[in-house]
């Protein structure tokens, strides 16, 4: 038996490899949805409501039908005849209004941009021409332009049969809040507001569908984070068996949670493909994206906080009012707000917490998920509360946090809302932050600046984040597990298929590293496929900071199974027990003897007489991976451990406010971040850079605006401003690595920085303007909003 020289040791996790996605993307050879080619491809354009609220009396498509190049024109009423409906699949929530809806509006439109009719034509140009020839007779109705207005007694009703506009009413009570308030030395009352923004992936939504009548099979290409679960939804609504539907998510130009919902248009494309018998494609343009591609974050919080004069927060009551826009969205738009309510205790020992939440339907774009998913608002609440109580009592922010922090023991620690925290030490993390940020020096520098009349502020904030969550309670199904398929081919090269879907996070690179480490080979020998329902039975997609944790865990589980089988083959060939076989550097070894990885692979397929007696040929497994520590539903006390594991972060910021303009300059931002075992430092830091930029955008730049009639005011990138070069904040990043107890030791990584950064920026801006007597209680600190605050400040 020849023993070849071992190859170089494979990179360990935590080290840097060049991303294998890069070359094609750099050369313009990526395949995004708009690049997918099909012979005879037809183009879909969608007529959208110009009114915020109206009854549809009639849709006349006769003029559009006669335009040369038009294949078909479809109304909601027509498609509803043979097409199923969407629902939220949550009959188990009695206080949620149960609604169903169609791929196109049928009787009523409820926001500007709601799809009303669709044209299929030879080109997008012709399809858009045809839209202008469709005549819709609307009976305009008064609009509900925000949640507060929607709650008024005489408010127009989006759904007359509801009797009001409350889509979801949700109360919750943990501990004994009455006793906490009875024992308090003081009570803080405050109102926090969060403005409406958009995740704004650079590539909007889109779908391409091709139906083969002979086989009855439908193939869909969709820019989606959730291809497998979308297949289930397409099956629900088209009536096609899932065995006859394939969904492929090609390269994606971002997603950020906006593409983790099931869009009406995606299923519309499937329905149209079946009707017109041509492949059809719809690509959302930017105005469609800003009108109807999902918005996020808009909430207001009325809070009462019971505290003791020593700085201990005893209890908290919150009244959440959430503007969910039109509720016709699956997964439901209340989902992030439900998360908000659950994360309020944050990393603090707050047992007595009660809330009420009303999610109000309004005549605006559906609210949906965006990176952070309700957590930035909940963390903002608790972090602001600590600073504001501390300010009253003359206790500094660091001391306030140490006084109220969850202690290091026990782990796991169960929070008021049922989260089973498996984190490291919050106290040590805070200490590390203060050192990394040079906190004491920054505070001294602030005093010097203040003495010079400058508005410089220093802030800190912390967060604990549920990652790899179970979506069952919010979607009525799907859970939180993941699947992976791993095949060692006869030549020793490896295929891995995962049920997660990269939108830019480098999954082809990281999952190759994860598999290669278990198999003891080079990542260069591993090919990764994601986003294809034909490659893997099922998957739950990429959202909730779950891909490394669940996808990585599934890959490790699959790789271990295959490795163990290969070790058994090697053991047979070396006439030794399998447990004495070691796997490393591309070899299976027993002492000095070594068999190359590829030779075992060949034996499994090509020389099966070498296999131990009774062993099946082949080296391929499909695994499901579920750590089993999450719950599908809250228990009878309303407690729910939603996440497989928890990540943590602490941040410090130094900012300067220019009083005349309201412009905030971020001088320094430090983030201490613990997402367990790090797979790739550079990719991880890139995630944090991007999340920080989005947090900077939402705090200082971005705002989706509507007028009082529900007419959008921000429908292009010329009026919805996101940060560009020069607005970049370069965070100083420190990684703590507290491994989780899950496979690989991973915790989620993609969202922590966008959760903690809005809170730390608000804290720092508050500190900067505090000498002027202004308190920061809102997420929107754009120059005009901040100027208004500064000019409206109380005298003196």
């Amino acid at each position, binding site marked *: 038996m020849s023993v070849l020289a071992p190859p170089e040791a494979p990179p360990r996790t935590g080290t840097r490899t*060049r991303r294998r996605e890069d070359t094609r993307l750099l050369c*313009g050879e990526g395949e995004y949805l708009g690049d997918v080619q099909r012979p005879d491809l037809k183009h879909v354009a969608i007529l959208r409501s110009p009114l915020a609220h109206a009854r549809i009396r009639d849709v006349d498509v006769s003029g559009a039908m006669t335009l040369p190049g038009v294949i078909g024109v479809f109304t909601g009423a027509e498609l509803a005849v043979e097409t199923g409906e969407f629902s939220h699949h949550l009959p188990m929530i009695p206080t949620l209004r149960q609604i169903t809806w169609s791929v196109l509006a049928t009787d009523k439109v409820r926001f500007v941009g709601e799809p009303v009719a669709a044209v299929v034509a030879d080109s997008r140009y012709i399809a858009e021409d045809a839209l202008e020839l469709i005549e819709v007779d609307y009976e305009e109705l008064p609009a509900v332009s925000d949640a507060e207005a929607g709650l008024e007694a005489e408010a127009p009703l989006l759904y007359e049969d509801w009797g009001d506009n409350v889509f979801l009413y949700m109360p919750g009570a943990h501990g004994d809040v009455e006793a906490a308030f009875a024992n308090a030395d003081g009570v803080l009352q405050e109102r926090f507001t969060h403005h409406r923004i958009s995740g704004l992936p*650079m590539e909007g939504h889109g779908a391409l569908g091709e139906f083969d009548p002979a086989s009855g099979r439908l193939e869909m290409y969709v820019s989606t984070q959730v291809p497998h679960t979308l297949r289930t939804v397409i099956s629900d609504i088209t009536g096609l068996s899932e065995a006859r539907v394939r969904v492929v998510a090609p390269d994606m130009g971002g997603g950020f949670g906006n593409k983790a919902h099931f869009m009406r248009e995606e299923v519309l494309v499937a329905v149209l493909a079946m009707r017109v018998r041509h492949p059809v494609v719809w690509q959302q343009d*930017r105005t469609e994206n800003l009108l109807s591609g999902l918005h996020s974050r808009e909430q207001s919080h009325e809070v009462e906080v019971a505290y003791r004069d020593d700085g201990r927060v005893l209890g908290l009551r919150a009244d959440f009012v959430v503007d969910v826009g039109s509720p016709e969205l699956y997964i439901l738009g209340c989902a992030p707000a439900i998360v908000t309510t659950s994360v309020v205790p944050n990393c603090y020992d707050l047992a007595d917490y009660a809330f009420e939440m009303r999610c109000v339907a309004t005549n605006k774009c559906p609210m949906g998920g965006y990176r952070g998913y309700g957590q930035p608002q909940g963390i903002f609440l608790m972090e602001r509360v600590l600073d504001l109580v501390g300010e009253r009592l003359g206790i500094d922010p660091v001391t306030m946090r140490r006084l109220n922090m969850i202690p290091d023991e026990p782990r796991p620690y169960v929070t008021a809302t049922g989260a089973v925290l498996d984190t490291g030490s919050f106290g040590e993390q805070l200490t590390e932050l203060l050192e990394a940020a040079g906190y004491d020096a920054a505070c001294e520098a602030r005093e010097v600046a203040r003495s010079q009349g400058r508005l410089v502020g220093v802030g800190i904030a912390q967060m604990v984040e549920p990652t790899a969550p179970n979506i069952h309670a919010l979607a009525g199904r799907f859970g939180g597990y993941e699947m992976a398929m791993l095949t060692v081919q006869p030549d020793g090269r490896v295929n891995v298929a995962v049920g997660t879907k990269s939108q830019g996070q480098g999954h082809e690179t990281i999952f190759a590293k994860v598999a290669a480490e278990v198999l003891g080979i080079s990542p260069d020998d591993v090919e990764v496929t994601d986003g294809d329902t034909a490659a893997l039975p099922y998957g739950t997609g990429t959202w909730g900071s779950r891909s490394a944790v669940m996808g990585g865990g599934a890959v490790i589980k699959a790789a271990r199974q295959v490795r163990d089988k290969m070790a058994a083959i090697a053991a047979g060939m070396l006439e030794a027990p399998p447990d004495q076989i070691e796997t490393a550097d591309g070899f299976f070894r027993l002492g000095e003897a070594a068999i190359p990885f590829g030779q075992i692979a060949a034996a499994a397929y090509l020389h099966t007489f070498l296999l131990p007696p009774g062993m099946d040929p082949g080296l391929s497994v499909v695994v499901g991976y579920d750590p089993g520590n999450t719950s599908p539903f809250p228990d009878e006390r309303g407690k729910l451990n939603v996440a497989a594991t928890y990540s943590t972060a602490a941040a410090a910021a130094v900012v300067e406010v220019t009083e005349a303009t309201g412009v905030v300059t971020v001088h320094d931002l430090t983030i201490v971040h613990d997402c367990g075992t790090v797979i790739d430092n550079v990719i991880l830091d*890139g995630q944090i850079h*991007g999340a*920080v930029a989005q947090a900077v955008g939402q705090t200082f730049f971005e705002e989706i605006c509507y007028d009082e009639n529900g007419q959008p005011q921000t429908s292009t990138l010329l009026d919805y401003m996101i940060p560009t*070069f020069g607005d*970049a904040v370069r965070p100083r990043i420190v990684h703590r690595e507290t491994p989780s107890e899950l496979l690989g030791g991973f915790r989620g990584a993609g969202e922590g920085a966008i959760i903690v950064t809005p809170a730390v920026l608000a804290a720092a801006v508050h500190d900067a303007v505090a000498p002027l007597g202004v308190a920061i209680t809102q997420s929107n600190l754009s120059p005009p909003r901040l100027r208004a605050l500064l000019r409206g400040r109380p005298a003196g």
Partner: protein
Amino acid sequence: MTAVRFSLNGEAAEVDVEPRELLLDTLRDRLAMRGAHAGCEQGACGACTVHLDGSGVRSCLLFTVQVGGAEVRTIEGVGSPGALHPIQQALSEHHGLQCGFCTPGMVLTALELFETDPHPTRERIEEWMSGNLCRCTGYVNIVAALEAVAGEGS
């Protein structure tokens, strides 16, 4: 329909288009140059950037009939998988791309800068690039990559 002849990445191209057809659509749909991306179709994001006679333009804001006789250069004419341009190489080495949708536009905008100023400062890079939007990277590593190119430029 109007016949339009121009140079595309150094080779002759001829298309028959409606006067209203956008250069971006002609490049993508008729000439299979799909590296230019439609990010906003309003000239705001820069994902559709190509060079017209050596200068960066928004191909979503130009009609194809406007480029007759001109030299058009797209990302496909900058580098190839086997021979990345130094800007492309630097972006990969510094992790200056994530989803990659904005990346071809970034490369072409940066290319024009380096062709006129091989050693730009960070401030000049940020000012020059500010018409190209990225939602993934926070710009940190794009700037790092371009600073590296600036440091090595001849």
